[in-house]
């Protein structure tokens, strides 16, 4: 019995220590994740990935400021024409993560760039409404956006094939026919 208890204790201690080790930000975290180019920090957050990515890619928090994420997460029952409601705990959990990594959180170069062309009080609901997005895509014609293979400007992965891994550099872009 004593051995069993001790065994459980050891397993729990090892589990807690390894959890801590993996969740603490490493000193090189910024450099490792944020490639400086159009590569986003590699973020992991279970609910964000599971819930947001059921209908579209889990859009990186660095694409919108905190105020935008608060609006988006506050209206999930009418999310761009669809009911995407969540239980309150999951909703709060995801919002906390989005705010901590938002464009104006100062945690990514991508976010800094998005903020450079954003007014202090701007809180766009769509990434595609940001001046940064519009400028970045000004060479893409209307005809390309409406191709069936693209479907919508919300479908990043149609052209940015590794969008779900946060890779957006121009060399990796393949516009489908």
């Amino acid at each position, binding site marked *: 019995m004593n051995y069993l208890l001790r065994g459980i204790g050891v397993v729990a201690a090892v589990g807690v220590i390894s959890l801590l080790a993996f969740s603490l930000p490493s000193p090189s975290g910024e450099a490792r994740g944020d490639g400086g180019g159009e590569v986003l920090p590699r973020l992991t957050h279970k609910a964000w990935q599971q819930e947001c990515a059921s*209908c*579209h*890619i889990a859009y990186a928090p660095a694409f919108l400021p905190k105020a935008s994420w608060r609006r988006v997460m506050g209206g999930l*029952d009418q999310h761009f*024409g*669809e*009911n*995407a*409601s*969540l*239980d309150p705990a999951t909703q709060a959990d995801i919002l906390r993560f989005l705010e901590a990594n938002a464009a104006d959180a100062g945690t990514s170069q991508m976010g800094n760039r998005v903020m450079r062309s954003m007014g202090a009080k701007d809180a766009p609901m769509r990434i595609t409404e940001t001046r940064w997005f519009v400028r970045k895509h000004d060479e893409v014609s209307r005809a390309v956006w409406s191709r069936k293979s*693209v*479907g*919508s400007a*919300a*479908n990043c*992965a*149609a052209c940015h094939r590794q969008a779900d891994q946060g890779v957006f550099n121009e060399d990796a872009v393949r516009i489908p026919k």
Partner: protein
Amino acid sequence: MIKKMFRGSLAILGLVSAVSGAAETPASLMANYAQAAGVPVSGLSAKRGEMLYRTEHPGRDGQPVSCAACHTANPQQAGRTRVGKRIEPMAPIANPERFTDAAKVEKWFRRNCTDVLQRECSAQEKGDFIAWLSQAR
């Protein structure tokens, strides 16, 4: 009446407790929904489930919507969300993960019934729906 309500809430309790981990099957979910609706499992109708899946309703923006619009006319095939992301097939025969997680099932009924029908689905409708999809061969 009170007895029926009591039975209904018991069934809902059953659903909630299932949320906490135990894997469900299409059959166990059908049993839970039948109980919540106050009918035997044999009172679920695959035919009504199919109607629910295929019937078009006026959507919020006036455009007709149906389950089949995104999940395709053949539930053994993959569908596409409005922004083009793949939706795994609805029929358990083509996608064994379907209807194995009560919380997930409840979440999507809540969302999609409100989008398609402008109201939540009843326990009877949910049971009918799973009855139809799980008999697809």
